[in-house]
């Protein structure tokens, strides 16, 4: 009986030496192939991580009405942020997120309650800084560049257009501006960008002088504001876009201001830039970011060589 059962067992189902050796070669070769493939994949994925390569790349705009793109004729889509983004699209920046709020000060940026908080290009609740920090953390490594235009609303009330003089309180306002920027806003933004932060990813803008024609002596007031912004930014190695220089500087500001802003417009008499003015700011931003005209150069290092 035992002999008969043994006889019925098919040879290929037993683990005899020839059967093992028959599978050994293919098995070893297959294992070698899998290991080689896995090694090649690990190397290739480390070089070109698809989650960064083919994911969304964001341009985050923060700040006040100038970042918002405000114009008194209710054209809110021709701001410098829109111009910069249009150029960045050529460099695979896919999405613009504009959290700017018209009337924003450094205080409202931190604590909320911006003057025009109901009108945003991109919706968020709470203070702009908190929304920006949350966004940067959520999309770490995918946000580049970040532009920040803040400070003018902190001190704009300190200059009296009727008397063309600085009123009392401007020193205190500038001190608070410095404090808000250096102790809260800039550290939080930089920390939120984390290990992905590189010099140049975040830039600040200084301000032109809308009162250059009406009050030539306002130049000192604007210089002081811009000097404070430059000093604050320098503490964090953040480049500052020279909007003041782009609008003509001391020499040509008064000549250009009617073209670049609505200040001479009889109907609006508004300090905000015109579409032409916003284009000038956009050019200055792109120059500071280091990719003027873009020309296919991708600011995001991970995509170098994409689309060959």
């Amino acid at each position: 009986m035992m002999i008969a059962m043994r006889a019925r067992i098919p040879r290929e189902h037993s683990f005899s030496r020839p059967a093992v050796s028959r599978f050994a070669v293919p098995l070893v070769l297959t294992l070698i192939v899998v290991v080689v493939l896995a090694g090649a994949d690990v190397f290739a994925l480390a070089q070109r991580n698809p989650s960064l390569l083919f994911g969304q790349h964001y341009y985050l705009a923060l700040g006040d009405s100038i970042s918002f793109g405000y114009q008194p004729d209710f054209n809110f889509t021709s701001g410098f942020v829109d111009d910069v983004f249009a150029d960045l699209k050529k460099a695979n920046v896919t999405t613009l997120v504009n959290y700017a709020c018209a009337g924003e000060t450094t205080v409202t940026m931190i604590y909320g309650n911006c003057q025009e908080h109901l009108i945003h290009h991109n919706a968020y609740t709470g203070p702009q800084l908190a929304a920006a920090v949350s966004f940067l953390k959520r999309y770490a490594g995918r946000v580049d560049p970040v532009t920040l235009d803040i400070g003018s609303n902190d001190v704009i009330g300190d200059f009296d257009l009727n008397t063309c003089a600085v009123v009392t309180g401007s020193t205190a306002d500038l001190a608070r501006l410095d404090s808000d920027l250096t102790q809260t806003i800039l550290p939080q933004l930089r920390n939120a960008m984390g290990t992905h932060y590189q010099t140049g990813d975040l830039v600040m803008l200084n301000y032109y002088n809308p009162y250059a024609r009406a009050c030539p002596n306002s130049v000192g007031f604007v210089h002081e504001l811009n000097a404070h912004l430059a000093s604050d930014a320098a503490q964090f190695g953040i480049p500052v876009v020279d909007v003041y220089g782009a609008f003509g500087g001391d020499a040509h500001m008064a000549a250009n201001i009617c073209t670049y802003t609505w200040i001479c417009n009889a109907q609006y008499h508004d300090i905000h830039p015109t579409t032409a003015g916003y284009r000038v700011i956009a050019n200055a931003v792109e120059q500071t970011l280091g990719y003027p005209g873009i020309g296919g150069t991708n600011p995001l290092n991970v995509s170098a060589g994409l689309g060959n």
Partner: protein
Amino acid sequence: MAVSQQTNVPRLIGLNLAVLLEGAAVISVALRVTLLPIGQFYPATVSVLLLVLPIVIGLLSKRIEAGVLLPLVPVLVIAVVYLALYAPVWNVDLFTLGVQAGRTAGVLVLLAVLGLCGWLIRRLTFGRKAATVA
């Protein structure tokens, strides 16, 4: 037995080389990496290779299991490596996962069918002894 293994070894080496080549083609297409300096011909070449190599693998496979499964190895390995290193599944919601799984399944089915085609060509050309089901 020894003679049979000797004649098998070149075929097995060719088979594994074809799998490795397909792996290179998969990396190239999935990550848009250029591996050969042939300029504008590269995208067309690698696309054709990605379709032809599974058929070659099927042609070189004696067993149907190998013909169908080996073309899938490069895609499966890169998928496993990518998921393990860069994309924890719980970062993907249920509906996105379904879409992604569908795309992956589409690629796998295509490669398996191409491999099967190669194996069937082998069977038709060289007879049943050269291409066995069991």
